[in-house]
Structure formats: C-alpha cells, structure tokens
C-alpha cells in the first residue's frame, strides 16, 4: 500500500473544463456536488482506501522566525502567490494507477449545469519514513 495526496487548488492549477465559480451554480447543483464529494469519501472508507480529507480556508498568512527573543514576523496574505491550496484527500492504495484512477473520479464531480468540472487535481506520492524491511540486494 502507498499513500497519495490528492490536492485541490483555489489558484495555481490549470483551468478546469467546466470553470464557472460556485456562486454562479444553482443551489441544486451545489447540493449535487457536495453529495458527490461525500459519497466519494464514504465509498473509499468502505474499500479501506480512505485516510483523511480536509478543506482549507482561502486566507492565511506567512510566518517566519525573526531571531532570539523576538516575536515571529508575519506577513501576507499575498495576492500574487501563484499557488493556493483549497484542500486535500489522502488515500492509501495499492498502486499509482489506482491513485490516478481515483483522482480522475474525484475530478468528475458535477459542477455548473450538472456536468463534470474536469478540475485538475495534483497527485503526489508520500515519501515513506522507513526503508523497506527487505533490503536492496544489489548495493
């Protein structure tokens, strides 16, 4: 099993095919979208592939250490930041192919007009913390 992060972006992803902003959908279309997302997560729980799903607020700030005895420096939010993450789903699946298949299904969530959004999702494999127990034999 391997874990993958499916990332959704507020900004920074290529434009979706069905790119209407959500407040321009009908309330029924919003309900259908929410239902699709909930059903998707519930189905992955049943197949034993779901790990976590979270959404992020669009606004945050940048923070960095500013030296001994000084409070951290905060800045932002920066409007020009190219990449803005909206949320994620973590899945634990048997193969990269399965991760891509599931990301494809998630991207098919219905949007305006009840048609799939075709949203671009970023699929990133987790780096495991431990080396394999079966050691590499050709080193």
């Amino acid at each position: 099993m391997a874990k993958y992060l499916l990332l959704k972006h507020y900004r920074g992803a290529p434009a979706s095919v069905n790119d209407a902003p959500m407040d321009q959908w009908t309330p029924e279309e919003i309900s259908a979208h929410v239902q699709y997302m909930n059903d998707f997560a519930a189905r992955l729980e049943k197949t034993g592939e779901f790990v976590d799903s979270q959404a992020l607020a669009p606004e945050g700030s940048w923070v960095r250490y500013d030296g001994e005895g000084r409070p951290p420096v905060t800045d932002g939010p920066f409007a020009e930041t190219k990449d803005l993450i909206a949320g994620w789903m973590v899945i634990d699946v048997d193969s990269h192919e399965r991760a891509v298949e599931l990301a494809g299904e998630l991207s098919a969530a219905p949007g305006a007009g009840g048609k799939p959004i075709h949203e671009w999702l970023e699929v990133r494999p987790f780096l495991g913390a431990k080396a394999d127990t079966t050691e590499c034999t050709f080193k």
Partner: protein
Amino acid sequence: MDEALLRSLTPSVLGILVRRGADFAAAEDAVQDALVEAVRVWPADGPRDAKGWLVTVAWRKFLDASRADTARRRREDLVDEEPAPGPVTGVDDTLRVYFLCAHPSLTPSSAVALTLRAVGGLTTRQIAQAYLVPEATMAQRISRAKRTVSDVRFDQPGDVATVLRVLYLVFNEGYSGDVDLAAEAIRLTRQLAAAIDHPEVAGLLALMLLHHARRASRTAPDGSLVPLAEQDRGRWDRTLIAEGIDILQAALARDRLGEFQAQAAVAALHADAPTAAETDWVQIVEWYDELLRLTDSPVVRLNRAVAVGEADGPRAGLAALAPLDASLPRYTAAEAYLHERDGDLPTAARLYAEAARKAANLAERDYLTRQAARLNMSMGGRGNGPGSGSPR
C-alpha cells in the same frame, strides 16, 4: 449493563479515592481501569451496589499501581488511613471534581478533555475520536492536564463560571465520532445542577435543552444547514422545550440574571413561536440588551443587530451593524442577510459569496455559497457578476 449509570458514578468514585489520600492523577487512572473492568465483568444489570463495587475495585487498582511505582511505606500508610466502609454522600465530591477539571490554570482544550474523562468517564480513545486528534495526542493532553492540577487542593472552592464555560464548549462541539458530545454535555450539566443550586447552571441547562430540541431540524437529509426560519417546527422536540422553559422560568424567578439565562431566554422565545413570522423579535432585542449589560461582547452586538433588523426593519439592522468591526466572525453573513431583506439583491449576493470565503466551517461555507447562488439565479441566471466562488 447500563453504561450511562456507570459513567455517572465516575466523579463521585474519583472523589472518594482522593479523599482517602490518593493523588488526583493516580486516582483518575484507577477509576478508568475500574470502569473498563466493570464493562468487562458486570452482568447485564450490574451489581447491587454499583458505586461500592467501583470504589473497591478502583481503590485496589490504585494500591496495585502505587505498589508498582512508589514506596511501600506510603501504601501501608494509606491502607491504615482507609476509612471504615459506610454510606458516602458523594455530592460534594462530585462538585469538587468538576471544579478541579475546569481549574483556571488549565487551557480550555485541556479542561474539556479532562472533564470528559474524569467527570464524564469517557475513554481517551473516545475523546480523541470526538476531537479528531490521534489517541496518543489526547492521552498526553490529559496527562499534562492532570499534572497541572496535581498541586491544587481538592477541597478548595472553585468557580462555577469556569465549569459552565467548559460544559458550553463541549456542547458546541456537537456530534462527532461515536460520542454525542452535545448529549454528554447535557448529562454533565444535569448532574452539576443536581450537585449545586445556582441559577446560571440552570440557565446553561435550559439553553442546552432548548438548542438540542431543534437538532433534528437543523440539518437537511443531505447534511446541509437549515436556518432557524426555515426549520420544520413540527420536528422540534416539545418535551425538551417544555423542560427547558420550566427550568429557565424557575431560574429567572430568583432574580439573579446571568449570561446563560439571558441566552436561554432568547432560545425560549424562538422555541415558543409557532411560526418564524410570529417570533417576538421585540422581546428578543430586549434580551440582547440585557446580555450587553452583562457582557459587552461584539458577538452579542452582532446578534442584536440581526434581531433589530427583524424587529425594526433591515435598515435599522444595518445601522446597528455599521459601528461593529467588519472582521467579526459572521459579520459579512449578517450584512448579506440584512441587505437581502432590504431588497438589495446584487449587494447581498456579493456579500454572501464573500461571507462563504470567510466561513469557519464547511457547513456554513456551503450554506452561504448556496445563498449567493440562489440570489444570482433569481437575478437572471449564471454568467452575471464577478466570479468569486470556488469548487470545494
């Protein structure tokens, strides 16, 4: 076996162990172990003297644990000191456990966790699941909390207000994981109301009951939020409402008004209205004025502005909103609502979309996005106005 009965005995059993000389942290662990054993070995109806059984088993577990890690001498002293078995009242001890778990030296999240475990008898795993954190994290939070209060004298009087704040936090967490925290908060507040005669404890209990009565109607089958005005009032739990109102009236009659009684009064006026249109908004504004006298909080001012908008018209509501800080949570949502009532749909739609971006949780975000969508549609369908939403 009656788990609710078992858990209701938790604080008084813990109190007895502490009185016998066990330190709070070790006693708390021993009581948890005894609860686990009770679940395992008790027959369906439990032993005749459930509390006596728990005290005996918890005390034995405490002694076993202290034998394992501290001097035998201390243990022997404790055995010598052990009071003769006999009837124990437990009521004061229960109250003291509440005070200790909500001690002002604890952070709110620590006080909540410790209260759920030491007063509520929930396991660390259940509490961790309810708050969506790893069990090891919750275990550390609880053990740090126990260390923090370990030097507090058990029989020191506590502050009811801090206990009420903790219970209110638990109630607001609602339903999560396997544990119904709202119901648990009600159970703990009932138990507190039985241990101490205090109008604000009654006020909080009434407030919880009146809110809980509406729970089934607060969400649609698809999980989306249903605002108060659109709720099916036929699904409100009239038994809970009647109980809440009785408790509130008895508390108000004592003429020692507090924040929770005033909040409960607002909830009672909503519960009393046969339809949303028949809500007595004038009286609700008066209760918000009382609340402002008690606690000059910006959140109360915001709620009051919405009530003024209902009582005196949306322009009056907007005027009441204007002096407030626009960064207050739900400020933009309230502003959007009042503009819609005032007939300014383009402004309302824009503000609903903005409020959705500022929402603190998904349920509210979806609700506010739907409101924006509804207005945009009523104004002529998609394609109007600047794009401002985003898919989840």
